[in-house]
């Protein structure tokens, strides 16, 4: 059972040890063990792989894209993808075909991935943090503050998500930043609920009592003791919600309230392609496939992270 004490441990043994020797060693070892259990989940690794690929593609979009995503060529409008049938052969250079203004769809998808990542990152930074703050404060302090905060959360929850976002964008004006704000505004209440529920179970545990008995203040307990335990379940929930967020952003784009026309946002691209969907399927299908793939990847990763991070599955 025990590893034999050979001269110098290999890096792997060093990371797998149960007896870390310094703060950094302990942290590295626990991270490595989490990584190992994530690695054993093949679907999660597939999701992670797709997302890594997305990040690389977005970073290298300017190198990889065969054409300028904004340059129009009306003579070559609605060119089908290159593998299309002989009756309607594709043209060299337009791998995934071109849209109604003759722009290369592949290049637009590549550049669009930047926008998608931008939206996803901003929402992922805003909504869960707001939710975490509101939920843990409400859950830990209790009393009237809990009632007020949670009723506000309920009000936001009561609105249909897309309608609220629509109303918000309509007042502030269309654009990616406002779309992000709108989505975050509608996305935080579930996180607040999760964080509060989690906090309620944590706050009466002995280890919180123990730190109270050292004279620790409320803010310290919330940020140092409760947050670390809530964050893992929020991370899982955020990854699982990412698909929904991408779709909401695409939905706003589709309605013309998100990214504005020349911008190659995926939802907006579908919206444009809609007019030609019967005769020229690829215009709407290609960005649709991109959204589908990325959403699926986030979902797979989220499922895997849940297995790794969920504290209910035992401590290690």
């Amino acid at each position: 059972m025990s590893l034999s004490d050979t001269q110098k441990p290999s890096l792997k043994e060093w990371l797998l040890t149960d007896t870390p020797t310094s703060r950094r060693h302990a942290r590295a070892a626990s991270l490595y063990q989490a990584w190992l259990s994530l690695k054993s989940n093949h679907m999660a690794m597939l999701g992670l792989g797709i997302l890594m690929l997305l990040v690389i593609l977005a970073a290298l979009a300017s190198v990889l894209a065969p054409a300028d995503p904004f340059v129009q060529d009306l003579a070559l409008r609605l060119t089908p993808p290159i593998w299309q049938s002989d009756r309607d052969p594709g043209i060299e250079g337009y791998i995934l075909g071109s849209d109604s203004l003759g722009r290369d769809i592949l290049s637009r998808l590549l550049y669009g991935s930047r926008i998608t990542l931008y939206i996803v990152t901003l929402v992922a930074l805003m909504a869960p943090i707001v939710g975490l703050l509101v939920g843990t404060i409400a859950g830990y302090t209790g009393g009237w503050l809990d009632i007020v905060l949670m009723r506000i959360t309920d009000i936001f929850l009561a609105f249909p998500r897309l309608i609220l976002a629509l109303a918000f964008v309509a007042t502030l004006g269309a654009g990616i930043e406002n779309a992000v704000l709108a989505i975050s505004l509608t996305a935080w209440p579930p996180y607040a609920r999760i964080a509060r529920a989690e906090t309620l179970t944590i706050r009466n545990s002995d280890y919180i009592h123990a730190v109270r008995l050292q004279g620790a203040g409320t803010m310290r307990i919330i940020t140092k003791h409760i947050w670390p335990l809530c964050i893992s379940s929020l991370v899982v929930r955020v990854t699982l919600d990412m698909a929904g967020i991408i779709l909401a952003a695409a939905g706003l784009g589709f309605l013309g309230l998100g990214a504005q026309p020349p911008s190659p946002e995926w939802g907006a691209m579908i919206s444009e392609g809609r007019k030609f969907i019967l005769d020229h399927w690829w215009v709407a299908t290609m960005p649709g496939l991109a959204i589908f793939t990325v959403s699926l990847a986030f979902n797979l990763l989220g499922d895997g992270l849940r297995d790794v991070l969920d504290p209910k599955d035992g401590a290690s």
Partner: protein
Amino acid sequence: MSKLLEVENLWVKFPTRTGVFDAVRGVSFSLGQERLGIVGESGSGKSMTGRAILRLIRPPGMVTADKMELEGVDLLGRSEREMRKVRGQQISMIMQDPKFSLNPVMRVGAQIMEAYRLHAKVSKKEAKLKTIAMLEAVAIRDPERVYRMYPHEVSGGMGQRIMIAMMLIPDPKIMIADEPTSALDVSVQMQVLEIMDKLVTDRGMGLIFISHDLNLVSSFCDRVLIMYAGRVVETLQADKLHEAEHPYTRGLLNSLPRLDAPKDRLDVLKRDPAWATDESVSG
């Protein structure tokens, strides 16, 4: 004495990241119409042994044995479906905390009735009569009232008695009790044990009593297996517990504080690595 259960060279293994972990290592014993105690500390494999007999070890855990027979009939080769018939009908199990073994949204009576009717084809009316008789048998004073109660309305001791009633109603041949009284107060503990003892003796059942409490087991059982690190280090007649020879058993006995024999410092068990590697003793 006829053998109810025979186990030879039982192993329970769990693959882990750092290799295979052997929770139970080559345990052999047989059980007649008697009360057999299995004692050990946490991690000694005592509960795993009990669960392995019922084949309740979930994958990736593996159970292997040279022989595991219930009245001469093999248990290892049976399909999951056949095992389901064995569980409850022929071998039943009582867990530590009744709070987790009773369904919280079903009335007590309905649960016992369901357990009974799963194994016996009887009418509802008959089942109810039998259920109430069974509740009476575990010394519940007002069985009609308890019959209609929900699990959260009964105390821990009463809950454990209800579990015993439920487990005994199909008339099993063997009962495995895994720390059945650890969650109970001392005074209730004795009461529950007495009831269990009476029922088991009256029906000529075999009982496997798993516990961490040496004294409790020795006062209640006929024979005791002492487990350490997945193997049996010593087997004893229960009344000869205080003549135990293995240093582990002696160490456990000496480490208990005693009201009648006060001392300033308690003896601390010194663990010998050889205990964990020696061959298992068969019982």
